[in-house]
């Protein structure tokens, strides 16, 4: 039943998403866990003795169930949304080798298109109040079109020139929020505009079939709006993961990889470079556009300043930390980049509250209440050394990028592959 890994008897077999039964079972179990995450399933919430002390786990719930807690729900949902966008950038940068610092710009375009199509108009802003099955794909398509418009310039540029030009897009995009017509779409700068509720309905005035923005009851569960968003976005994210995976293992993906590895050689072999680069830009922008609209929907606020350089760099970090060119790496990277700051904050808080024991001793060394000793200011201190945990998080973000690039260029996925290979061959080294 388990078969032999790496023994393929046909090409079709080799390109399967999950080639072995073990992987299928694990994946099915994992996906089921994801769907059940927000709910209190007794089996999952039993307190395992000895795990109560783990600080990030909240109420002593083992495993990763805490991610479905009220506290964490929004961050967990954000992971899903950013995963969609990061998958898009992975296709462009990881698979096709076109480095873009403008991914946040395309997210912003998607968010603006989403609110323009789906939002309600008033004297300040435009909007059409269309249902979600128009505005969500519309967001993606608009971003893809903008991607196609930009790509003729982008395709001519290479490497860092391309990176800096796409960086320019981010600034230009934020500036559009300052123009008189940009304000009609995105709302006043620094304030933004309310994003419409996510409701599934047939047409404008119909009653909502499913209202994701209000509490309700599904099957045997009471679900809050946050949990509904989570489930909706989970379904969408799984869809986009499969889409990305399928793009990568079909003709388009192979063409993009060929271009990344050696573009002229690819062209000689009959891969039209220009066309595939435009496709890469369009697809990647489509992912970004959908994610942008969802991003604004999650906070029910569209703020043009939010789609800034930091967000773009976050995506680059996601891809590099996760492992460029792989979908699994992208998902892991997103989780890592979004969640690590939360964990660090919680850990600091837990340390600050700890008295005595190992935790207390660690707290004495690491934290400082009065600013005399230690690395992290635990109280609200004036700025300056020691830095607060929030500043440390930014530093940590930078350090993670550097450390991963220097020591593990293949990212977390690379680490995983190494560990897996080690155990696969154990006790032999080759």
């Amino acid at each position, binding site marked *: 039943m388990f078969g032999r890994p790496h023994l393929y008897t046909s090409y079709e077999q080799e390109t399967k998403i999950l080639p072995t039964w073990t992987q299928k079972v694990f994946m099915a179990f994992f996906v089921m866990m994801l769907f059940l995450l927000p709910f209190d399933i007794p089996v999952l919430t039993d307190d395992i003795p000895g795990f109560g002390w783990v600080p990030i786990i909240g109420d002593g719930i083992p495993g990763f169930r805490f991610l479905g807690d009220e506290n964490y729900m929004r961050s967990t949902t954000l992971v899903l949304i950013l995963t969609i966008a990061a998958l898009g950038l992975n296709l462009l940068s990881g698979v096709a080798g076109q480095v873009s610092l403008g991914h946040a710009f395309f997210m912003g375009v998607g968010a603006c298109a989403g609110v323009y199509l789906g939002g309600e108009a008033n004297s300040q802003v435009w909007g059409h109040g269309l249902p979600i099955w128009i505005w969500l794909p519309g967001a993606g398509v608009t971003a893809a079109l903008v991607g196609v418009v930009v790509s003729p310039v982008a395709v001519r540029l290479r490497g860092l020139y391309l990176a800096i030009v796409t960086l320019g897009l981010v*600034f230009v995009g934020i500036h559009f929020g300052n*123009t008189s017509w940009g304000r009609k779409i995105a709302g006043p700068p620094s304030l933004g505009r309310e994003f419409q509720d996510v409701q599934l309905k047939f047409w404008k005035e119909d009653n909502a079939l499913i209202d994701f923005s209000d509490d309700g009851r599904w099957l045997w569960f009471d679900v809050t709006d946050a949990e509904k968003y989570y489930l909706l976005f989970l379904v969408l994210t799984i869809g986009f993961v499969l889409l990305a995976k399928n793009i990568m293992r079909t003709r388009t993906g192979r063409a993009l990889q060929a271009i990344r590895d050696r573009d002229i050689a690819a062209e000689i072999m009959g891969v039209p470079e220009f066309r595939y680069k435009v496709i890469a830009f369009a697809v990647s922008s489509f992912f970004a556009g959908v994610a942008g609209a969802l991003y604004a929907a999650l906070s029910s606020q569209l703020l043009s300043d939010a789609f800034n350089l930091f967000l773009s760099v976050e995506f680059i970090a996601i891809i590099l930390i996760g492992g460029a060119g792989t979908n699994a790496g992208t998902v892991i990277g997103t989780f890592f980049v979004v969640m690590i700051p939360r964990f660090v904050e919680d850990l600091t808080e837990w340390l600050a509250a700890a008295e005595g024991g190992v935790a207390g001793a660690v707290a004495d060394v690491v934290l400082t209440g009065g600013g005399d000793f230690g690395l992290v200011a635990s109280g609200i201190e004036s700025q300056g050394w020691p830095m607060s945990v929030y500043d440390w998080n930014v530093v940590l973000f*930078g350090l993670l990028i550097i450390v991963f690039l220097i020591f593990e260029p293949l990212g977390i996925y690379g680490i995983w592959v190494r560990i897996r290979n080690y155990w696969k061959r154990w006790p032999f080294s080759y």
Partner: protein
Amino acid sequence: MTAGTETAATEGVLVTKSNIAKAAAAGVAACLAIFLAKQLIQDPDLFFQTFMKSLGLGSTYALIALGFVLIFKATQTVNFAQGALAVAGALFLSFMVADDHIPLTTIANPLNNVGGPAWVGWFLSLAVALCFAAVLGLLIERLAIRPMIGQPLFSVAVITLGLEFILRTANNDTSETEFRSLEIPWGVDGFNVGEAFVVWSYVAATVTAGVAFLAVFLFYRTRLGIAMRAVAFDQETALAQGINVGRVFAIAWAAGAVLAAIGGIFGTQPPVKQTGAIDPETANLAFRALPAVILGGLDSAGGALLGGLIIGLCEIYAGQYMAGLSEQIGAGYPLIIPYVVMLIGLVVRPYGLFGTPEIRRV
């Protein structure tokens, strides 16, 4: 369809497009020239004042851009942390001149009472601050860049992005987001030429940029400079010729950081800032200077000078003479002028004005 026809078709499209772009650019340039000539005749004083202002801004951009180019020529990477380095250097200077102890230590600062006029102490402090910037550049190169030799170029660029976040946080925490005055001797005063008011810092920035570029051009004629150009041309061959690539890297980073610090110091002066004080916003100056480098060509020092001046000129003149259009083109439009100019430039020349086109082989 064969690859050959496809390529020909693509290039055909591109060639026509670039011709159209060239024609359009020429047309726009002609209109601009007429408009500016009209302004010159109407109010020559204002025009001259604007010109000096744009020279000041352009020189500041050019200084930072030159730092980018030096680092790019040696290590083939864009240093995204240039802005944070600029603030770090200028911040160190502000500590040198304002505090009574040497920054990061408790030792009394001997430069506070060197005697003589006040500017003697200031220039000595400046020298120390520039040394600090150089050491910072060396440290970064040794710790974060040297291990990346032979890695993809973009990875190195992303490392500098990571550095930017670290340095920026450190800067904000050290300065406590205050306005820290640099106490520059010429201050924000100026002199009148007719009706036009010219701030001393415009002149200072222009002169400094001139000197810096002269120094770099002379440096490229020295033994080390030739070694640096050889490294830029082909790292492996340079290594084979016995050139110490590591040392070239180190020198380029030190020089780049020093230029960034000088740019940062002028970034606290008119026309960039009126306060004569460093504040966290100054770090964004490098993102405005980046288009200057791209416009001039990433590997051309002359291009950095020209690109910086062009961008500065466009930004200030657009700010002065398009003010009435703020409503239509959006408030704060000078912020994106550098990028718009860069995009137009790149449509015409994908490798910048003086950049070397990359020769691609299979």
